[in-house]
C-alpha cells in the first residue's frame, strides 16, 4: 500500500520541462482545443447551411440533407472519423495531383478539424432547424408587414428569437465536440488522449497521466459550463423563467 501511494505521487513526471511530461500534455490539450474550436465552427457553418436548406430548400436538397444527417447520426463517430479521415486526405491528394501540385502532406490538425466539423454539422443542422422553427411565424409576418427586408428580419427577429432555443443544444454539442477530439487518437493525431497514452507507455505511470488528462478535460468542461450558463442567461433575457 505504501509503495502504491509513493507510485501515485511521482509528481515530478508532470513537470513542464522535458524530463517531465506536463508540457507535452498541455501541448496535446492545445491541439485538442484547436480541433474542437475549428471543428465546432465548421460544424456551425454546415449547420446553418443545412438548417436553411432543410427549411427553405427544394425537395432534392432537403432529401440529400436528410440522408446526410441520418447517416452521420446512425454510424459511430469512430467509424466516421476513420472513413472521413482517409477519404478526405485521399480526395485532397487526388485533387492536388489533378491540378499538378503533387501530393501534399495534410496536417493531422486540418484533417481533424474537417472530420469533427462534418460530424458536428449533422447534429447542429438538427438543433438549428428546431430553433428556427420555434420562432413564431406571426412575428416574422409582422416584421415583413413593417417593411423589413429579409436580411433585417433575420438579424432583428429570427436570430434573436431562435437563440434561446438553440443555445442549450449548441452548448451540449460543444461539450461533445471537445470529447470527440479524443477519438482522433485512433488515427494518430497528437491530441491530449494520444500524448497521454504515449507518456504513460514511456514512463509506465499510466494511472498518473490518465488522471491528469482527465482533470484537464474536466476543467475544459467545467469552464465551458460557466460560460454556457452566462450565454444562456443572456440569450434568455426577457423570457419567462423556466422552473
Amino acid at each position: 500500500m505504501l509503495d502504491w501511494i509513493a507510485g501515485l505521487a511521482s509528481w515530478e513526471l508532470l513537470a513542464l520541462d522535458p524530463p517531465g511530461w506536463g508540457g507535452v500534455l498541455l501541448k496535446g490539450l492545445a491541439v485538442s482545443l484547436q480541433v474542437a474550436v475549428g471543428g465546432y465552427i465548421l460544424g456551425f457553418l454546415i449547420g446553418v447551411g443545412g438548417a436553411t436548406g432543410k427549411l427553405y430548400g427544394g425537395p432534392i436538397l432537403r432529401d440529400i440533407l436528410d440522408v446526410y444527417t441520418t447517416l452521420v447520426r446512425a454510424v459511430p463517430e469512430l467509424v466516421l472519423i476513420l472513413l472521413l479521415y482517409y477519404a478526405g486526405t485521399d480526395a485532397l491528394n487526388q485533387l492536388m495531383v489533378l491540378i499538378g501540385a503533387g501530393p501534399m502532406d495534410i496536417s493531422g490538425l486540418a484533417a481533424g478539424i474537417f472530420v469533427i466539423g462534418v460530424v458536428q454539422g449533422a447534429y447542429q443542422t438538427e438543433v438549428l432547424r428546431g430553433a428556427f422553427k420555434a420562432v413564431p411565424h406571426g412575428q416574422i409576418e409582422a416584421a415583413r408587414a413593417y417593411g423589413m427586408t429579409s436580411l433585417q428580419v433575420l438579424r432583428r427577429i429570427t436570430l434573436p428569437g431562435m437563440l434561446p432555443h438553440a443555445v442549450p443544444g449548441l452548448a451540449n454539442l460543444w461539450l461533445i465536440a471537445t470529447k470527440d477530439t479524443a477519438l482522433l487518437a485512433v488515427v494518430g493525431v497528437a491530441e491530449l488522449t494520444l500524448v497521454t497514452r504515449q507518456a504513460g507507455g514511456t514512463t509506465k505511470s499510466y494511472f498518473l497521466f490518465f488522471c491528469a488528462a482527465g482533470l484537464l478535460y474536466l476543467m475544459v468542461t467545467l469552464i465551458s459550463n460557466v460560460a454556457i450558463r452566462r450565454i444562456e442567461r443572456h440569450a434568455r433575457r426577457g423570457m419567462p423563467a423556466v422552473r
Partner: protein
Amino acid sequence: MGPELRSWKEPHRLVLIAIGIGIIVFAAVNMRWDWLPRYSWRLVEGVGTTLWLLVLTSVLGFLLAVPLGLAQAAGPWLLAAPARAFCTVIRGTPLLLQLWLLYYGLGSLFAQYPEIRESWAWPYLRQAWPYGVLALTMSFAGYEGEVMRGAFAGVPKGELEAARAYGMSPLTSFRRIWLPRAIHRALPTLAGETVLQLKATPLVATITVVDVYAIISRVRQDTYLTYEPLLLLALIYMMLTGVLVLAFRWLEAKVPVKS
C-alpha cells in the same frame, strides 16, 4: 417519418433512389469484396460480441443509474455529492480516456500485486473485456443517472403523498409508485441513450476486445483495403441502429405514455 414514407414515389425521390442504387451497384462491381466470404463467420461473431456488450452494459448501467439518480434527487448530502461528482466526471471526460485509464492504469496496477495475481479473479482481470464492460457500464450510468435524477425529481409530489395516505411504507411507495413513475418518465430518453451506447461500443476494440469493429480492422490489416471494410462496417452499424430504433418504437407503443 410518416410523410417521407408516404411520398417516396415522388419523381425526384425516384431519381435519388436510382442514383443511390447506382452507387451501391458501382461499389459492389468495382470494389474488392472477395475477402467477404472468408471473414463472414467472424463478422457474425463480432456483431454478436457488439450486441452482447451493448445489452449487458446498458442493463447494468441502468441498474446503476437508478441509485445514482435517487441519491441526487432525494438523498442526503453525503450520498448526493458523490453521485453528482461521479456523473460530472463521467460526462466531463472522453469515454476513450476512461477506457484507457481502466485498462492500462488499473490493469498495470493490478499486475503489480501478487495477492491479486494469485486470486480467483486474475484469469478475468488479465483479459480486456472486463475493463470494457466496466467503462461502458459507468458511462451509461453517468449519462442515464442524470436523466434519472430529473425523472425522480419530476414525479408529482401529490402521488407520493397519496401513497403515504393509503398507509404504504416508504419502501412500498418507492417500489409501487416512485420508481415505476420515474422509469416511465425516463423511457423516452432510453432509446437515444441506447443508440449512443451502441455507437460507443467500438471503442473497446482499442483495448483488444474482438467486436465487429476489431474484425474489420483485422480485415484492413490483412487485405490492405481502406474503404471496402469501413463502408461495410458503417452499413452494419446503420442496420443495428435501425433495428434498435424500431425495437424501442415498438416498446414505447406498448407502454402508454402521456405526450
